[in-house]
């Protein structure tokens, strides 16, 4: 490693209806559970929140499990009726979201994904 990643950490700012979590360091296999737990902890008792902003200004790397965790976070915020914002995305995060086709999913309106298992099955286009 040329420059060691800063230690993983979450900086949390809680305003009236918006929760801002700044993700510092690598969001990966070892650290992503911490982010999910933090989000779940904040969502559970408090329904006054309308928005969750994840600030990736100081994100240094993300792996597939990190992305999986973001999808899970999105599932939780959608279920709670919150808007999820992924702010200050570094290039590698944008490229990953683009490659995996998940950017639209994250930016879609919060109510689009109600039941995670209910839709999308067997709806092939049938072109051949």
């Amino acid at each position, binding site marked *: 490693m*040329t420059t060691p990643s800063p230690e993983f950490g979450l900086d949390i700012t809680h305003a009236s209806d918006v929760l801002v979590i700044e993700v510092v360091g690598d969001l990966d296999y070892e650290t992503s559970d911490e982010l999910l737990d933090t989000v779940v902890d904040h969502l559970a008792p408090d329904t006054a929140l309308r928005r969750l902003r994840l600030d990736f200004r100081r994100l240094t790397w993300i792996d*597939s*499990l990190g992305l*999986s965790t973001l*999808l899970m976070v999105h599932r939780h915020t959608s279920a709670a009726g919150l808007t999820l914002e992924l702010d200050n995305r570094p290039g590698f995060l944008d490229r990953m979201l683009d490659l*995996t086709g998940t950017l639209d999913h994250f930016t879609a309106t919060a109510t689009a*994904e109600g039941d995670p298992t209910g839709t999308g*099955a*067997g709806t092939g286009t049938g072109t*051949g």
Partner: protein
Amino acid sequence: MVNDAARNVLPEVPDGEDPHVSLPDWLTEAHRYLADGPGEGRTEPLSGAIGGRHYEAHARLSADGDVAWWLIDATDRRLAEETLRSEQERAAILTEVSSTLLSSLNVPRNMEATVRMATRHLADAALLVAPGQGRRFPLTYAHVGGPVTQVTRAIDPNTLPGLAEALQGFPPVPTRWINPDDIPSWAIPEGFEGPVGSVIVTPLPGHGVPAGALILLRSSTERAFTESEDVFARMFAARAGAALSAARLYTEQATITATLMQELLPPQLGSLHGVEYAGSYRPAQDHERIGGDFYDVHAGADPSQESLVVLGDVAGKGLDAAVLTGKIRNTLHALLPLAGDHQQVLNLLNAALLTSRHTRFATLVLASARRRAGRVRLRLTSAGHPAPLIVRADGRVEECGTRGTLVGAMPAVSVQSVETDLAPGETCLLYTDGITEARGGPLGGELYGVERLKRALAECVGMPAEAVVEHVQMLAAQWLGQGRHDDMAVVAVSAPRTGPPTGLDGHAHDEGPGDPEPPGGPAGTRERNGRTA
């Protein structure tokens, strides 16, 4: 001469001139040494037994050559010292048990070491009964001066008092309750001399589960087990049991991993229906973890049918990833009849994988390949996966235009397929991001990246699929150096450079006029949009 105090200690010594005759030998000898010897006073105290007690003797030479012997009763101190030495020996034995057994995770070897140490330190013979399956139990026998033998035998634990309880992990039956005459013949090692005089049956306690039982035997000519030896045997068994159950748990886990790995091992690839396939999988160095990369080639029913290549990458590692990988491979296998429509296959796969419990996903590439008129027709679909790269005959390296969403975490899948032809000698490479995200290089910590991979592939023009795969893996390995890496999987699909299409498709003509060209031209690509939800 003997004074009154000495008289109490040595009542038999006569008051005569030569008391040596009835003095204890050790004292007589010491006296002779002093009296007849060079006359140097011995500084260390002498000691020995007199009438069941232990005495230290200190000599004092007088001017006229007489020797006065001071006798000091040291029985209690000696007992304390013996106890201490015995405790130290026991502590050393327990340390030996732990260090010997914990250095190995091989269960049979640990059972062997346990009985060997038991016969060295505790008993004349030892038998370790491991937890059995039904009535059959693995038995490890040892006796002093004999070999260690291991057999699996049907035994009835109830025939040996205390064994059934010990195997269930109950506290041991006190040794004095076990009648040596009740020992069944199977519990006595072959070659054990003489009748059994004394028995200890003690459980080998494991981590919450019994790891078996240890039976210690002494022959009747030896002294019986004392209560303190009984206690020590239990301490010995506790150490051995902890180590054995650790080894057993590890072995079970390793077996599970091996079973899964066997199921998840990448298949052997080769030439199929006139198309060349080659694959390579380099698992992450994290040996205990099953990686998340996989690939499969499903052969078409006949050369006119497409074969389906799947290469994928499951998020995460370990058992969760292994289970998801297995699920994906099985589901895709079942969906093969629908492989003509990649979008539909991916939609059905996505639906099968979706669960409310997690958002563990996979990215994958589907490639349907079929030999046609000397070329290889390819349909490629990426589901959130790095796009396949194609090495053209003129050295160009193209990134395929297919793109799509990952599967298993979102309600719907949306993909764009691409069709293209491979001319003879051209290769399409499917790879996982373990290659492009390999960190290393001259400065270390730098990503290998797609551009470097493309340049590497440009050197592979005309190479057979096997060589392309090896070249890519070799370059990635060089880039990594000693660095750690994730799973790396590569599959190459090539149109063979020369020769007839292996005679399998029944067409004598290569490039024959009767073969209709697909829309979009022979080497052109046709994009197909399929989007749901």
